[in-house]
């Protein structure tokens, strides 16, 4: 009789371990897959900023209000920061906590 309940506990324990293992592998796979795309996205934002400053600086683009450039660059900086924060703190929370 004692063996019965211990077998149940052992079975439940092993199942929980397998599930956790699977979940962790899933998260790691997701991290690999998404990290490339996130890097590309951040790269695009940075390149956009560089091009914007260059075009504005060389007066090829002319904005009536110079504050627009500052706003756009600040917006992009916040996007990069927010993206990094979201990814590390929320999407991959389990791995990084």
């Amino acid at each position: 009789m004692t063996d019965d309940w211990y077998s149940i506990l052992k079975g439940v324990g092993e199942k929980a371990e397998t599930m956790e293992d699977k979940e962790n592998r899933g998260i790691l796979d997701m991290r690999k897959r998404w990290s490339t795309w996130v890097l590309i996205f951040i790269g695009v934002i940075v390149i956009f900023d560089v091009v914007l400053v260059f075009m504005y600086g060389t007066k090829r683009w002319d904005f009536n209000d110079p504050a627009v450039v500052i706003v756009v660059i600040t917006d992009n900086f916040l996007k990069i920061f927010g993206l990094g924060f979201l990814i590390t703190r929320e999407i991959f929370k389990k791995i990084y906590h």
Partner: protein
Amino acid sequence: MLNDIDYNHIENEALNVLDAYEITKPVVNVAEIAKGEGINIKEIKMQDQYKGVAGFYDKKSNTIYIEETDAPKRKSFTIAHELGHIFMGHQNATVLYRIPRKDARYAKEEKEANCFAADLLMPDFMLKEYMEKYHLGKSDYVVMSDMFGVPIPAMKVQLEWLK
């Protein structure tokens, strides 16, 4: 008094038992430990007058009796609790009952036995190892309770106390 309890001593006693039985992974087989100590385990249906009693140890027959209708996790904790009385050398009663917390004025010996049971089933080193291995935190007490084969509230408390 809570302060009278020597938690370090209890933890060391539990660790010595795990060491003696070379147990390094959950689920800790408390039935094997009892068997190794020559203690019998019997599952019985508690009489109505003992309703709420999860188990007891009868020194005379050297037997731990547990409620047969209890869930496996509770049975395991009950045996660990009774082993706590035995390993801690509690002598105050020939029959030591394990009564659920809400129904009992927890005496010092009961607290010690509970503490021993928790340290035996969920020692710090094992908890830390599994939290690291599976990237789990203190909020993951439900899945940890399955991994360790212990009741959820017991795991929750043990994780709160984890150093």
